[in-house]
């Protein structure tokens, strides 16, 4: 499956952290490493890391964000998830 583009990210789909990705907590958030394409990605807030970890427990990305993030910030978080999907850190489960 090819990764989505930023615009085509489907927040209503069920996403998860890719099995190919390791996540390491850091003071600023986390580092994600994709063992397949060997890219390093920086997650720049702890809240975002929490959302990413919670993805697999909710029916969709949007539902995850709704459960964890105050309303005003939700679109920012969806955009952050979209860029993680683009870099293959997330995939549809």
């Amino acid at each position: 499956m090819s990764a989505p583009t930023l615009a085509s990210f489907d927040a209503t789909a069920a996403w998860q952290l890719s099995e190919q990705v390791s996540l390491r907590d850091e003071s600023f958030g986390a580092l994600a490493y994709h063992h397949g394409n060997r890219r390093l990605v920086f997650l720049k807030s702890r809240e975002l890391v929490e959302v990413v970890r919670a993805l697999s427990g909710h029916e969709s990305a949007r539902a995850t964000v709704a459960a964890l993030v105050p309303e005003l910030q939700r679109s920012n978080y969806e955009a952050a998830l979209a860029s993680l999907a683009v870099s293959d850190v997330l995939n549809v489960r």
Partner: protein
Amino acid sequence: MSADVTLRDRFERGLAAPICLTWELTYACNLACTHCLSSSGRRDPKELTTPEALGLIDEIAAMQIFYINIGGGEPMIRSDFFQIIEHAVDRHVGVKFSTNGTRIDPVVARRLAAMDYLDIQISIDGADAATSDKIRGLGTYDQARRAMDNLKDANFGQFKISVVMTRDSVEQLDAFEELARGYGAELRLTRLRPSGRGVDVWDQLHPTRQQNRDLYYWLLDRPNVLTGDSFFHLSALGTPLDGLNLCGAGRVVCLIDPVGNVYACPFVIHDEFLAGNIRAAGFDAVWTNSELFRSLREPGNPGACGSCGSYDACRGGCMAAKFFTGLELTDPDPECVFGHGETALAAKRVEIRPTPSPDHSRRTKVILGTR
């Protein structure tokens, strides 16, 4: 990989574990390159044993260090080389290893091709035998090319061709690009630092100011050429090169040497930058608690560079390059693009250069056989 300024500030304060951990498996080497950063040659009798090496990998996996850079010496000389890298891959620790290629015959190439999470870097120092062998020894260029052929024939996939930029090799950039393209390989260019035996040849071999400028513009046009963040001191020329653009020593980067000593980076194998040994309480304890690393994670003194308009891009350059040319760590990089490093060097009335410790060079010159 690029990072914004706030993230870079975080990095300068250190991470829970290194991103770029180099582990040199052995000081033993069958070659004797004139610029060897680790002064390798003879095996150190106190080298980590196989159980110690496997235990270290378990700790690396527990610290969630995503991959390790394995080097030496020539790492493939260790008889437990495959055991070590297979153990790492089994623990989901990716392996990138640097080799002179002499041990990669067709059988070994097939074994390597069968493994996942493995990156190989084959080192050459010129795009032709004459240029490369001048540094690495007679016959070594052909041996490296044979290793590349063997990897290609074994369908290893994309490997890396790694070149240190010297006054000679920097004139062959297009030829390296061509060579890599022919193999479907990635090209990786790194900076010559005056480390290890490199201290003896740096004056004659490091690129001139004009060559460094040309290199910078060549790299800007080719974001796909890997540099291991080597040339951030050249970012002072304008648009920053791709990378973190900071000296990661002890913050993002570190070295474990063959006897378990932990240094701030692979290019500062010297007592002054020794943080501890993993044999005492493990690697994590050294990484987290060493006084040296803690001090490196404090905001540094920009010294003479503080008033430079390009400080944000260049950060005063490479600590190792300053240290081994006898400069203060607050001086500009000896290759400062504005020539301030050369001025600082010239201003030293007496030149006192630290010599690398330890030195594992062979005492007699090696005669290379052809196979």
